C-alpha cells in the first residue's frame, strides 16, 4: 500500500527554486533514504510534507489524502511525525513530559494522562532514556536529545516518520546505537521511515531505497548498491569516489 505519494512537487522561495518536479512514492513499511549536498532541498522537502511550508506546485498525498493547506498539527494528527535537524526539545519540561505531550496530542491521542505516561515510558525504555525520565530535557547531551526527539516523534503515533539527519553530530559508537534504535522502532511500531542522512555508512545499512536530490531536483532513485554505482550521483555528491 502506498503511504506517501509526491507528484511533481515544487517549492519556490521568491525567485529561488528550492525544489522542482519531485515525484516518488513510499510504500507502507519501507525505509527510504534521501541524500544530497547541503542546499539540495532535503529539509525543505520535509517541511513541505509536514506542513511547515506550503508547496508551490504539485501534490503531496498521505494515505490517499491531499495534504495541501493543512497545518502541521493537522498533518501530525493524520499520522506524519518528524524530527528536526537541529533538535527542538521542550527544554523546561522533563524528558517524560516531552514524550507524553506528543502522546497526548498526536495521532495516537492518548485517552488519559496515565495512558500517555505509559506510552512515554515504553518509548523511553526503547531509546534508552528511562533513567533520565524526570530530568529536564535541556540537561541531556546531544545524543540524548536526539534520542528524545526520536521517542517524541514516535509517541505521536504517526505511521510515517520523517528523520532529519538524526545521526548528525554523533560519535561512531553513538551512530551504531542510534541505528539499532531506529531499526527497533521500525519493527516494533510498524513504522514507515523517510530518512535524510549524510552519514553514508549508516544510511546504506538502513535504507532499502535511496532518492538523490541535487539543487532541488531528483537526479536518481534506487537501491543503495545502484546509487553507489551511479556515475551521475558520484559526480554530484560523492565527488567521484565510491563509498
Amino acid at each position, binding site marked *: 500500500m502506498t503511504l506517501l505519494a509526491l507528484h511533481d512537487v515544487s517549492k519556490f522561495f521568491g525567485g529561488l527554486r528550492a525544489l522542482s518536479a519531485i515525484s516518488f512514492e513510499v510504500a507502507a513499511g519501507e525505509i527510504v533514504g534521501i541524500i544530497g549536498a547541503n542546499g539540495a532541498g532535503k529539509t525543505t522537502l520535509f517541511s513541505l510534507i*509536514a506542513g*511547515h511550508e506550503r508547496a508551490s506546485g504539485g501534490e503531496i498525498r498521505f494515505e490517499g489524502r491531499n495534504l495541501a493547506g493543512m*497545518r*502541521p*498539527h493537522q498533518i*501530525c*494528527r493524520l499520522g506524519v*511525525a*518528524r524530527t*528536526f535537524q537541529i533538535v*527542538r*526539545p*521542550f*527544554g*523546561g*519540561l*522533563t524528558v517524560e*513530559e516531552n514524550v*507524553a*505531550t*506528543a502522546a*497526548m*496530542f*498526536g*495521532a495516537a491521542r492518548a485517552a488519559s*494522562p496515565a495512558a500517555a505516561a505509559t506510552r512515554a515510558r515504553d518509548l523511553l525504555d526503547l531509546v534508552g532514556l528511562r533513567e533520565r525520565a*524526570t530530568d529536564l530535557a535541556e540537561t541531556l547531551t546531544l545524543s540524548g536529545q536526539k534520542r528524545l526527539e526520536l521517542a*517524541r*516523534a514516535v*509517541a*505521536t503515533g504517526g505511521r510515517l516518520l520523517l528523520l532529519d539527519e538524526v545521526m548528525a553530530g554523533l560519535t561512531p559508537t553513538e551512530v551504531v546505537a542510534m541505528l539499532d534504535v531506529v531499526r527497533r522502532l521500525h519493527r516494533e511500531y510498524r513504522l514507515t521511515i523517510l530518512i535524510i542522512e549524510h552519514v553514508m555508512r549508516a544510511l546504506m545499512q538502513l535504507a532499502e531505497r535511496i532518492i538523490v536530490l541535487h539543487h532541488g531536483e531528483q537526479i536518481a532513485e534506487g537501491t543503495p548498491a545502484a546509487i553507489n554505482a551511479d556515475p551521475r550521483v558520484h559526480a554530484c555528491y560523492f565527488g567521484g569516489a565510491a563509498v
Partner: protein
Amino acid sequence: MKATAALLSILVLAFAALPLGAGDYFIGVGLSVLMYVALTQSWTVLSGMTGYVSLGHVVFYGLGGYVAALAWGTVPLAAIIPLAGIAAFALAATIGSPALRVRGPYFVILTFGLAELVKYIVIVIEGWLGKFSRVMFGAPGLDTLYYIMLALAAAATILTLSVRRSRFGQGLRAIRENEEAAETVGVPTVRFKLLAFGLSAIIPGMVGSVMVLRSTYFEPAQLFDPVVSFSIVTMAVVGGSDDVMGPLLGAAGFVVLSELLWANAPQLYMIFLGLLLILFVLFVPEGMSGKLFPARRRGAR
C-alpha cells in the same frame, strides 16, 4: 493537590470573614489584594503558561470598567459584571489572532502599545460624547463589592488550577517551550494561544467593572493606567508564575508594600517595584513560589 485545595479553602474563608470584623480601611486593603490576585492569576493563564508576556493587560481591566461606566444606571449590577467580562473576551478574540503571531519581546511591546492605543481611543470617544469623566451614583457598597471581588479572585484561581492540570495546559506549556515543535507533535497552537488569551481577559474585565463601581468615578487616563499592567507583571515575576500560589504571594506582598509606601512616597514604591522586577528576572526567574515550593514545579501542579 489535596494540600493546595485545603490551603486555598482556608484562604477563602479567611478573606470571607474579614468584613465581619474589620473596618473599612482593612476591607479596602483586602479588596486590593483580591483584585490583584484575580488579575495576576488570569494573566498567568496566558503569559505564565505560553510565555507570551503581556505588558498591556490593563486594557481588559479598563474596558470592563468602561462598560460599567456606560451601563450603570440602565443595566442591573448582576448583568454589568458578566457583560464586562464578555466585552473583554471579545476584545481579546478580535486582536488575538493577529497579535499572537508576533513573538518574544515584540509581543511584549505590542501589548503595551495596544493598551495605550485603546486608552487614547476611549479618550477620544468620550470627547465626542462630551464627557471627560463619569460619576456613578448609587453604586453598591464596599461590602458587596468586596464579596464580588472575592468570588472573582476565587474564580481566577480555580481557572488557573484547571488550566494547569488540563490537556490544554500541557499544550500551552509545550508552546512556551518550543512552539514549532509543539505544532509538530499535534498541538493546535493557533487555537490554543487564542483561547488562552481570551480566558486571560475575562476576569480582568469583570475586575475593572467592580473597581469603577468602587471609586464611582471613571476617567479613561486614570483607569487605563500602565502601572496596573506593570504591577501585574511584577507580582507574577516576584511571586512566581509557574505555580498557583505565586500570584497570591505576589499580590499580598505588593499590596502591603504599597500601603506602606504609596501615601507618602509613591515614587519610592515604583522604584522598589522596578528594582524587584529586575532582581527577580535576573536572579530568581522562578519567583518566590518557585523558591519556596520547588518540588511543586514538577509532577502535581
